[in-house]
């Protein structure tokens, strides 16, 4: 039983993919907690991963002074916490990124304000 | 041995209650904080009606403490004459 209840209890989830204009993606930058939490954004499934990096990430992360020093060729990526090598020319779906996936990236050498991981 | 504690608002009436607690519990430690007083004692604490009445110079119903109480910790046992806090360890 998925809930302790007085009677049968079965309700639809509130956040199925059909409820959103596009699947949700969570995106976090490791060692940069100035951004207090990962961000949550809808990303159309046909978006190319590379376009997401060039077009969407600056709006979220460029307020951090480390952002302009990122070498995207050296960036390490994680999907649901596991190392992952996205193909920049392929779409989110083709890269295995779906509704409510968590993508994190680590930028070696960049460790935040005064190396505090903020 | 863990402490039990009780805290009261700091006012004229609780001054007498606190004096009574200190008199009846030699191990009690009183700490004055903004607008409140907290009293800790190892293992147990007793609050006696008769001692409070002596301090106040009038009759006192132990349930009158309800008006000034802020918080407490420990198992409670209350009668007309005594209010006890204890940890069973």
């Amino acid at each position, binding site marked *: 039983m998925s809930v302790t209840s007085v009677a049968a209890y079965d309700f639809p989830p509130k956040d199925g993919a059909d409820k959103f204009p596009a699947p949700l993606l969570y995106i976090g930058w490791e060692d940069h*907690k100035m951004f207090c939490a990962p961000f949550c954004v809808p990303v159309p499934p046909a978006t190319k991963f590379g376009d997401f990096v060039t077009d969407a990430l600056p709006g979220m992360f460029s307020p951090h002074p480390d952002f302009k020093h990122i070498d995207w060729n050296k960036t390490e990526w994680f999907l649901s916490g596991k190392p992952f090598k996205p193909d920049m020319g392929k779409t989110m779906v083709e890269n295995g990124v779906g509704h*409510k996936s968590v993508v994190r990236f680590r930028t070696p050498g960049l460790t935040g304000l005064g190396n505090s991981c903020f | 041995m863990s402490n039990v504690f009780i805290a009261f608002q700091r006012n004229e009436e609780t001054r007498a209650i606190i004096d009574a607690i200190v008199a009846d519990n030699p191990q009690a430690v009183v700490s004055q904080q903004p607008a409140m007083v907290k009293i800790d004692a190892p293992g147990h604490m007793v609050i006696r009606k008769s001692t409070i009445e002596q301090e106040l110079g009038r009759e006192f119903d132990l349930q009158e403490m309800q008006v000034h109480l*802020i918080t407490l910790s420990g198992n409670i046992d209350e009668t007309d004459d005594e209010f006890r806090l204890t940890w069973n360890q």
Partner: protein
Amino acid sequence: MDMKASKKLGLKERYTLMTRDLAWTPTYQAVKDVFPLTEYEGIKIHDWDKFEDPFRMTMDSYWKYQAEKERKLYAIIDAFTQNNGHLGVTDARYINALKLFLTGITPVEYMAHRGFAHIGRQYPGAGPRVACLMQSLDEIRHAQTQIHSLSNYNKYYNGFQNWRHQHDRVWYLSVPKSFFDDAVSGGPFEYIIAIGFAFEYVLTNLLFVPFISGAAYNGDMGAMAFGFSAQSDESRHMTLGLEVIKFILEQDPANLPIVQAWIDKWFWRGYRVLTLVAMMMDYMLPKRVMSWKEAWEIYAEQNGGALFADLARYGIKVPKGWEQACKEKDHLSHLAWNTFYSYGMAAPFHTWAPSEKDMEWLSAKYPDTFDKYYRSLWTHYAREQAEGRRYYSTTLPMLCQICQIPMIFTEPDDPTKIAYRESDYKNIKYHFCSDGCKSIFDLEPGKYVQSWLPVHQIHQGNCFPSDVDPGKPGFNPLAEVLRWYRISDGIDNRDYADSPDKQNFETWRTQATGN
């Protein structure tokens, strides 16, 4: 006439006569039809008369003492109002803590009232029924006195006016709201362990004692009066929580694992809500009584430690998340205040970076962590702000499915790494801030797949006023969400330095101290 005065009854006899003897066993209807919710949670009670209320409070003395508390409270509030007491507080930054309180805590006092009325009705035993009735009345009194007291501030300061509307909508208010909704939608036994024991006994001291002592320390007689008046009821509430748990455990050995699972769950749920209190204590009070860390050590580690040592004789263990909560005491308030600082546009109160003097205090109170991890953040923000670039995040954060707090918490043993946990349920991923929140989901996924997560609701288009069309060119989602929240941008929100509150307070204070 020969009159014989009868001896006054003792406390125990009075309690028996006025409580137990007024109850009866129904005969026209079966007991289980009158009290239909007592079995489905799996708790077994064999003899309700074994419940002991050590305060032995009867309804007549309850009314007498509550009336006296009210008279004292309203006398203080009148005096405070008549003397423009709001100008006597240390600094108008302080008043933002009151806005947080009114929007976040007062509505859950009301929910506590409803919850205790509900479970009081459901218990077959007269002892706990009367104690729940009293607590239900206490809780509505708390809601009312808080609203009355804070209405005085609403005459002068921004951000108080839409507290009830905002409680059901604004992102961070879903934290206390969902906590209480979770509790009242449990059964009568889970509710009393959740609120009566885990919250009232283990955690409430951390909410009220430092907050209200802090109010007094910052010259706020109004909040001090309602806070202590409410707190004077808490001892009774805490006692109910403790006595109920002992009673349930003594009734049947099969109750232990159920109760332990609730303690694990509700300790963690309540502790996560207190994140808001941690930042209030360390960052929002101009004059601080003690740090969150010190309060945690006194009221959780020492007092909670004593409590669980006492309950060990029943087989109860320290709640599962206890160790992690103790590790987080060095970090909690800093992470939380950065969240509100970053999303300072979307909350109906003001935020600010701590001053150099504030940071000295933080550094002294958090010698192992503040300078190492947090100082450079605030220094950076202050520098940016001085150059006209006050940082506000405009992208929505990822939330934990259970506590609904943005995913700000770090790995228990690595404060540099945000903790991510996830579960799959019926082909959808769910995300959590901690092992504690994940295990709550995994036990009852059918309940929490329905969480109303503010960020997801915004993305679903459910948080805009009805008069706008999100499809139209020039649609500004953030501005429309603020309108739906009823937050006046530039007045109720953003940095304290730029606020009308600050300007007004300075003007009025100048008028109050000379002509």
